[in-house]
């Protein structure tokens, strides 16, 4: 993972996010020093964005369905499971333990994503 120690705070999330794209992978990294403890995942066009999200322990992740079709957010390892989310509905989960959490939409299982908690 490429990191720049000279960058801190909110800017870190933005710049590291850009670096993530630079490596060809849609992934964001939230730095441990970051004040904010919530992160967003948007559901657009039958995909989770970002598809891979790295957050510190204690972060709350909120998924928002922006499609005209309902979706769900279901942990592959049955750690969390949303009710069905209609257009603009949200689901949040707070990650209190480190680990890798793969998830998918149980209605459209081709839609997959991952949260990495450090």
């Amino acid at each position, binding site marked *: 993972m490429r990191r720049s120690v000279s960058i801190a705070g909110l800017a870190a999330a933005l710049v590291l996010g850009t670096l993530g794209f630079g490596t060809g992978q849609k992934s964001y990294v939230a730095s441990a020093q970051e004040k904010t403890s919530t992160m967003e995942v948007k559901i657009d*066009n*039958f*995909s989770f964005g970002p598809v891979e999200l790295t957050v510190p322990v204690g972060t709350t992740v909120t998924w928002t369905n922006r*499609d*005209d*079709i*309902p979706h*769900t957010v279901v942990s*592959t390892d049955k750690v969390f499971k949303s*009710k*069905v989310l*209609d*257009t603009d509905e949200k689901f949040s989960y707070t990650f209190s333990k480190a680990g890798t959490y*793969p*998830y*998918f939409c*149980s*209605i*459209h*299982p*081709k839609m*997959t994503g991952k949260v990495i908690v450090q």
Partner: protein
Amino acid sequence: MSEKKKDELLHDHNNDGVNRRGFLKCMAWAGTGALCVMQGGVLKSYSLSRLSELNTAEAKGELSFVQISDSHMGFNKPANPDVAGTLKAAVDKINGLTAAPEFMLHTGDISHLSKPEEFDTVDQILKSAKPKDVFYVPGEHDVLNDDGKQFLERYGKGSKGAGWYSFDKKGVHFIGLVNVMNLKAGGLGTLGHEQLEWMEDDVKHLKHSTPIVVFAHIPLWSVYPEWGWGTDDSAQALAYLKKFGSVTVLNGHIHQTMQKVEGNVTFHTAASTAFPQPQPGKADSPGPMKVPAEQLRSVLGITDVNYVQGQHALAVVDSSLA
């Protein structure tokens, strides 16, 4: 070559391969309405405009039923703000068919969000259809939040497992399958071991000459796996049907008509009564496709199926709601 000959397609089902030219021609017609008649293992296709040239027995058959699909009651987005209205239009179309269908198949996504009032509305609208019996299989939108409990309570009487069953009508064996439960991350539709075992047993004692109609929500052939348009273990189900001379597979889910012939099996997907979806890969996602309001009913529809006893013939006709 006469005009009529040119519009008649012949597939030799003794060959394994599909007549590609014929298949593509049938596909092209599917969008506007096609009649595909299977007789003695040979498929003949006619465009709907040539229906008048068929004799009565061919056009009507001895068993007639209609397939509707993907009503999505409760959907209210721009692609169709009035899905109740278009379902009513589908019922009007069914009531206007010259050969009155004996029953209806609904291949799932009855509701949009599995809400009781959505199912109630569909039940109410379908009451005005002339055919009184409706056979259902669930779509993924019908089993949200409760693992299909409500669906089974409403429509699953006498069914097995998650709602699969079979029945016979005038010598034709119908098999309703469920492939929308327990979907795995990254996967497609799933039938599952228990259902496959049941199916193997269900067809074991049938004569090879028995015409088979299989209906399920998600296509049982690989339409476009990238969008989840296929069923992971459908090959196993189809293997049980290899011995039969005539197999017709009816699906919904992809909100457009599409047809494929492979050996003894004719695959067919029905249009939605609610909203169209894009052709495979022709958009960023398979989400609802907005068409100009005046064109909407031309991309929605019903599917009318006729069986001619003794001729191994199943004729599948798509009609738009326009």
